[in-house]
């Protein structure tokens, strides 16, 4: 498996009157072809900013690239012109958003929106393409759905239509930002199965962003954990969940209620994440960390461990 996407020392800030919010702080991360990389983190940790920063979909201003590079198939996306970037969006990188209700244009039929994607990239869209795409995302009765407007579809169908749009031009990377959070619990499995299937059929690299570690545990090949704008731990999902290195990951996993554990208090993480307008010197987790040592006053870098794992911690 080769690296499809390579992010090196990426920093993204939001310009605000009361100080810049340093939402993504020197993040390095790889997504390989044919794998699902799960990006986990709590609200405000910067995971959505990171996901949307890759195809440069963040509105600038207030967002601002403060350093680093995003290399997709050998080209640094940050240095591309807007025309070159437009070619890559859709054709190289597909995006699935959290809210399928606002991701589709309400006044165009599903079929028209898919055809529009082809014409925007000056590609022919032979008859039958639309129906073929809709059946690939396992929408039954593709002909009827192609003629329908978004409001005529259920939430789950709509998200499938969004996915059809995202894969229409045959991208190699799919970024899915909380793709099931807005959907009913019962529909989530189906959407995630679909993403899994497409990954295998098309050899896609998938960046799956979620606050729900349980969901990622079942869907991600590798897991990256984000805290306060930084990646604190990366590794094969099963290994990270079974024995996390970083005290934050460990604390978070320990606090999750388990079925078999019975009654009794849950261990909790004390304190709050730091304010990203003023991130602390050194390790961002230091103030909450039970294992903090004087060395933590210096920012730890993401160091490699055995088995393709890495952790940013001085005292794991």
């Amino acid at each position: 498996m080769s690296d499809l996407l390579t992010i090196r020392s990426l920093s993204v800030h939001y310009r605000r009157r009361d100080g810049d919010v340093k939402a993504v702080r020197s993040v390095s991360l790889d997504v390989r072809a044919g794998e699902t990389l799960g990006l986990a983190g709590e609200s405000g940790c910067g995971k959505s900013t990171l996901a949307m920063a890759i195809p440069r979909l963040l509105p600038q201003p207030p967002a601002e690239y403060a350093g680093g590079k995003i290399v997709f198939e050998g080209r640094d996306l940050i240095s591309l012109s807007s025309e070159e970037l437009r070619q890559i969006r859709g054709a190289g990188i597909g995006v699935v958003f959290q809210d399928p209700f606002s991701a589709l244009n309400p006044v165009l039929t599903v079929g028209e929106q898919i055809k529009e994607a082809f014409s925007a990239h000056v590609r022919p869209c032979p008859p039958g393409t639309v129906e073929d795409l809709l059946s690939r995302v396992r929408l039954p009765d593709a002909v009827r759905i192609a003629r329908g407007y978004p409001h005529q579809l259920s939430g789950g169908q709509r998200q499938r239509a969004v996915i059809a749009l995202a894969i229409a031009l045959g991208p190699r990377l799919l970024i899915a930002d909380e793709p099931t959070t807005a959907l009913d619990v019962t529909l989530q499995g189906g959407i995630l199965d679909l993403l899994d299937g497409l990954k295998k059929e098309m050899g896609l690299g998938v960046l799956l962003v979620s606050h729900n570690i349980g969901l990622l545990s079942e869907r991600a090949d590798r897991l990256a954990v984000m805290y306060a704008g930084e990646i604190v731990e990366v590794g094969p999902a099963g290994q990270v969940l079974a024995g996390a290195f970083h005290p934050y990951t460990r604390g978070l996993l320990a606090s999750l209620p388990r079925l078999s554990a019975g009654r009794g208090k849950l261990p909790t993480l004390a304190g709050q994440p730091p304010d990203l307008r003023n991130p602390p010197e050194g390790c961002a987790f230091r103030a909450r960390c039970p294992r903090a040592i004087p060395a933590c006053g210096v920012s730890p870098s993401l160091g490699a461990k055995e088995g393709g794992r890495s952790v940013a911690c001085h005292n794991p």
Partner: protein
Amino acid sequence: MTPGRRDTETPGNLKTAMLSLENIVKIFPVEGGILRRKIGIVPALKGVSLRVPAGGSLGIVGESGSGKTTLGKIVARHLAADGGRVLWEGRPHEEFSRREWASRVQMVFQDPAASLNPKLSLRVLLGEAVAVRAQIDGQKGPRRAERDRRLQALLDEVGLSGAPLDAYPHQFSSGQRQRLAIARALALRPRLLVADEPVSSLDLSVQAQILNLLMDLKDRWGLTYIVISHDLAVVSRLADRVAVMKNGEVVEEGETSAVLAAPRHPYTQTLLDAVPAFLR
């Protein structure tokens, strides 16, 4: 505030549940057309019967659309049932005034950002609840100094000691807001707390804190719980009995440990399978 109060007024007959629901039916009309005529009905609850003993804790699990939230709202009297009876210690709920019911049953909602009025300060949000309780007890509303002292005592109860009473909900994190919502419900000194998805809008690391708080309060205040959630793991923490709902019906009910160990209904098994392997 008198934590540690026990249920001394429960009738001698232990079989009388504190709250019983008998054959509860709820139907929602479907309106359509320009005249908003009723063009159909959706049965949300098709005859649900459940009992909650004093000091007990009943979990209700099911997916959205199963009717579990509707049931919770009927217990808290935010909705009226279309059929069946809601009984408090054997007496139909209609015999209780709104205030009397409020001093027995309180509800904690899923999203504290929505359940706390954003335009009101803590002093007002908590103070009005304390004032209602004082009126129920036939007392005058406490004076400012005394009231502020009581509000601080309430905040202590939920682990928000020293929070400024002039602050507004948006100045707190979502976990702290849920603590405020719980404090507000506690101000009424209820016997039964209905918690509808109390942690599902919260971040993972905060969920454990709120679950711990709910466990603590149950012991200290001698509370009875109805905990509604789609997450079996959450329910298994808080509930000694669990009812599994599907399409407006209870498909399985029993001791939590027994249901988890040996589910009898295939739907319960489906819900169990939905819990990620590493959390089982």
